[in-house]
């Protein structure tokens, strides 16, 4: 037997994208059947799915209506990229970004239970399913939930007249990228939680993101410290969706997309590593 034949064979994806294959950690390169994991989650969730969709609809509805009724009349138009826009149009896409983030984060918190209590992963990993399949499947599922929230949210925005450009349609793929990023972050966070008590820390981390990502006021409010906002992953989502909603397209938007995708890859990779170390010892 030669040494070459004992090595795992390269997948089609690896042959097609050798560079991506090199950058990805081994756990992810082994992913072959992440859709099986989606299928399992669908079987579990299909009976309660309608409630998730309704929840995704009511949350933005309450948010947007309170913003519109409350702040809308109190706050003057805000300058974004050289044009003045009503405050509600300024805030709505940011809330959409936050909703995609929350949808994905809530979903990945279930991962804590799958690792520690339900032992769902352990029984999956006894089959040809790999850690890469599990984490990619879970992030895709979380992204799906985030995307459903976003569609509901966008429907409410359109109905309430908070959109101003047809480019706003691109907020859906934009939200999906945000959900992917926070799916990755949430998955890693879920592997770090040691007990149910640790769930307390999740809002401690996500609330500042929600408040200080140029969600409710422009970056200029921070003065010289404005650059700090760039460190918030959510800010890149907010900036992306805000520009798309107003139809202010620029190459800079691709930078935001790149940051979010990088966060997704890092999140998923770290989570895969940690799950591997916990379960495949």
């Amino acid at each position: 037997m030669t040494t070459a034949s004992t090595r795992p064979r390269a997948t089609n994806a690896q042959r097609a994208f050798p560079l991506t294959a090199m950058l990805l950690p081994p756990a992810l390169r082994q992913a072959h059947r992440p859709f099986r994991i989606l299928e399992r989650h669908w079987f579990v969730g299909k009976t309660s799915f309608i409630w998730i969709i309704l929840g995704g609809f009511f949350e933005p509805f309450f948010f947007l209506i309170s913003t519109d009724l409350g702040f809308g009349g109190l706050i003057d138009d805000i300058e974004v990229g050289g044009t003045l826009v009503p405050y509600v149009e300024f805030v709505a896409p940011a809330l959409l970004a936050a909703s995609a983030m929350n949808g994905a984060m809530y979903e990945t918190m279930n991962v804590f239970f799958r690792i520690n209590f339900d032992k769902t992963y352990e029984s999956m990993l006894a089959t040809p399913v790999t850690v890469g399949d599990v984490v990619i499947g879970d992030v895709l599922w979380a992204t799906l939930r985030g995307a459903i929230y976003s569609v509901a949210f966008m429907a409410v925005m359109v109905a309430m007249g908070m959109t101003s450009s047809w480019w706003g349609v691109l907020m859906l793929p934009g939200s999906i990228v945000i959900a992917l990023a926070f799916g990755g972050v949430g998955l890693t966070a879920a592997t770090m939680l040691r007990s149910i008590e640790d769930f307390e820390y999740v809002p401690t981390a996500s609330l500042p993101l929600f408040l200080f990502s140029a969600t409710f006021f422009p970056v200029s409010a921070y003065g010289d410290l404005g650059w700090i906002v760039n460190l918030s992953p959510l800010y890149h989502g907010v900036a992306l969706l805000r520009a798309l909603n107003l139809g202010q397209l620029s190459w800079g938007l691709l930078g935001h997309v790149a940051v979010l995708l990088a966060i997704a890859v890092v999140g998923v990779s770290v989570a895969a590593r940690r799950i591997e170390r916990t379960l495949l010892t």
Partner: protein
Amino acid sequence: MDTDEPLIRARGLEKRFGDFEAVKGIDFDVHRGESFGFLGPNGAGKSSTMRMVGAVSPVTGGELRLFGLDPATDGKAIRARLGVVPQQDQLDEMLNVEDNLVIYGRYFDISYAESRAQARKLLEFVQLEDRATSKIMPLSGGMKRRVTIARSLMNDPEILLLDEPTTGLDPQARHVLWDRLYRLKQQGVTLVLTTHYMDEAEQLCDRLVIMDEGRIVAEGPPAELIRVHSPREVLELRYPAGANAEQGPALEGIGARQEVLPDRVLVYADDGEAALSEVHRRGASPESALVRRSSLEDVFLRLTGRTLVE
């Protein structure tokens, strides 16, 4: 693959967790159609060995081959041909009984329709067809175990790995389970199981190894192990509480050897009744006495100086 090549082959197999050595270099072969057991107390290294064999735990040292493949590089291909019954059932509590099986089958890329048909067939095999739509929670321990066994058979495995299959079950549930496992064996499925029950090992295993502190201390068919390591019969003597240890000198020379346990004294002899007469003749009459066939428990006690289930 060569026909006489074993399905599982381990040489100098080791497992370390940090400084702790769970498995300290063991050798064993399991052949097709065989029913092979790992017998030993908690902490002997049985489960660590099983997890390595199941290709979910990396080998620290030595060599392990399943179907001639190395779990380090061909884990997926190996797992595709194994059935696993873990110690805790690890059933998906979010799914009903039948869906547990169907979804598990999908992990092996079995088509949806085929998986559904296979699930129904296997629920019949484990006599749970009337529970197909039940949730997992309300099932008894024995039923959950049977669901887990049905689940492990979804991919028609060549080897079935069972980690303490009947621990925690009542006697009736154990017998139902043994019966099903025996049928699988007759169908040619290779069984590999761990247990700390002597009767289970004697019932189910063609051949077994006794493990203690990460090492194999004996190997062979159950009957042969008993024959080689222990006289035919055991005389169990019970003296008043606390008085067992004092009997040593009085019993010296009776039978092949004695073992003083906290609650009783064991005398190993080819003729237990004759040994008992001798005990009475010496005036060391116990409160109660019992002559029985010697068992794997005695072999274990002989080899390690400790009882198996503490």
